[in-house]
């Protein structure tokens, strides 16, 4: 066993274990933190596979944005911080069945895929990111959607602030 394989097994175990903790942790906040660890594990696996771009996206989008959003949502929601109720409800076996079914389906599809045993060579990964970055600001490619998206986010930001700020005074 090479060092890389040992690292992979360790990271995979951590990822799976923390994923289990996400659904079994009693406190919402703990579950969110376990989720961050699980997502970080996936990022490490991407790195082990030489997929630099996916590693960066995983960290920036999932850990940096989505996990933080979840934590904010928990902290801003009243009473969600406290642990309440049992972990399982009556339909738990249905959820378990669905999870096993999805896993089995994915496993079958992956195993029957001819490329499952092929080892990925060094891809044009680094070049791809450079091309992607250049295309985003290329006037003949995607600079227009890129800039419009930023304008849209600005408008959404103003709207969100307007909706959420308490207006005191000036009202009848």
């Amino acid at each position: 066993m090479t060092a890389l394989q040992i690292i992979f097994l360790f990271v995979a175990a951590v990822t799976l274990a923390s994923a289990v903790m996400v659904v079994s942790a009693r406190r919402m906040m703990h579950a969110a933190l376990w989720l961050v660890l699980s997502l970080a594990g996936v990022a490490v696996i991407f790195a082990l596979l030489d997929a630099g771009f996916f590693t960066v996206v995983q960290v920036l989008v999932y850990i940096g944005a989505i996990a933080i959003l979840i934590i904010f949502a928990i902290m801003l929601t009243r009473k969600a911080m406290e642990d309440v109720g049992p972990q399982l409800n009556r339909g738990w076996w249905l959820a378990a069945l669905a999870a096993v079914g999805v896993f089995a389906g994915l496993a079958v599809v992956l195993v029957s895929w001819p490329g499952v045993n092929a080892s990925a060579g060094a891809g044009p990964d680094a070049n791809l990111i450079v091309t992607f970055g250049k295309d985003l600001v290329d006037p003949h490619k995607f600079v227009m959607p890129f800039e419009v998206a930023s304008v849209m986010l600005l408008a959404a930001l103003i709207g969100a602030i307007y909706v959420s700020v308490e207006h005191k005074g000036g009202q009848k």
Partner: protein
Amino acid sequence: MNLENLVAILPLAALIVWAVLVLLVDLWIPKSRKFITALITAAGLALSLGLTLAQNGQSRSAFGGMVAVDGFAVLLNVIFLASGLAAVALAYDYLKRMGIERGEYYALLLFSISGMMLMAYASDLIIVFLALELLSIPLYVLAGFARPRSESEESSLKYFLLGAFASGFVLYGVAMIFGATARTDLAGIVAAMGSGTGNPLLFIIGAGLLLVGFGFKVAAVPFHMWTPDVYQGAPTPVTGFMSVAVKAAGFTALLRVFTALFRGDVYADLWPLLWGMAALTMIAGNVLAISQKNIKRLLAYSSIAHAGYLLMAFVPYGTRLQGDAVASTLFYLIAYGLTSFGAWAVVVALEKNEGMGLEIEDFAGAGRRYPWLGLAMIVFMLSFTGIPLTLGFWGKLYLFRTAVEGGYIGLALVGLLTSIVSAYYYLRVLVVMYMKPGEPVAQGGPWVNILAVATAAAVVLLALFPGPILDLVSKAIMLQ
């Protein structure tokens, strides 16, 4: 080169920069002088309008085919910017009267209009989606602008939830079409489907999903459920703006995307759906409007009905009558826009504080007490019904002609019959205004009165000389 690209979208770029400026400058304007913000906003709209008119006669694409500057875009952008000016005029005194005079109204309005302008330029599905979002997101907030009032919050939330859902449909449709052809630019998609490399099944699914998403934006039956509640709860100037500009933007998207992409076989599959949607929208809008007691709800259902008439002209787009379908839709949009803004101006003038005074019965006596507003309202109601000597008549005539010549005589018949039904509820408003005694108070302020009288004059005068508009809409050709 880059500069050429920027010049191509100069009216849009100027408006976005102006929106940010309005937001900044508003910080230094004291609460008692917010009318300055309104004036700055109007100046920005006028500037963009001037730049748009300077683009007249151009026909070119920019940003690598992402946007197209053509007669179609110029005409629609003029409609959007004029709607913006009308929305500022409606809000000028209204916001102050209702105690919700804040600068964000104007900044959000400008952002929304810039989304609509982008929609008119769009010749790539990515741009279509982004434009749809850019025009919708500020409107979700504007619908809830009278925030502490619960109807306004309800309106905002309903519009947001259903609007986000509809945007999902559009995005899914774009994804399907991308999956079918591996392209997002309209020209590339047409080429891919023409050369037979595309997947026809995914393509038609994409077409259906886009139809659902755009159908929501124009409030076509069966995607109209949100309209009455949202129109009733939103501040009246915002409702007026939505009823004209958002509808126009939705039809912009339909015309741009459908006339370019879904032709031939796909059209043969699509037209029964469009036919059904148009017929249902005309019937449901007009029939449901009959029993309304609130003027805002009445006009909301009336706007649904008019979306049906517009769809009727749109149905023959895949036949040899494409030019007529586009031109008659645009003509009716202009007629409907002028009439609708005028009617909303009368509603704003007679609305009392806290959203009171909006029952039709509250308009009793208004015709005698305010002869000018009453006269204007007569013009608008007749124009909505489509009675001669108003622009609405020419609009409907053109719509019916397009439908009949396209071979959709049944649809034209539905339109004709529902127009007769609509006369009942439009004329009832006039009966209440003139025949019943009452003492309403008009406090709309000068700009609202000017808007009402000016649009009424335009509806009548342009009906006497419809030539220039017919000329304009027939020249509004899309770059393909």
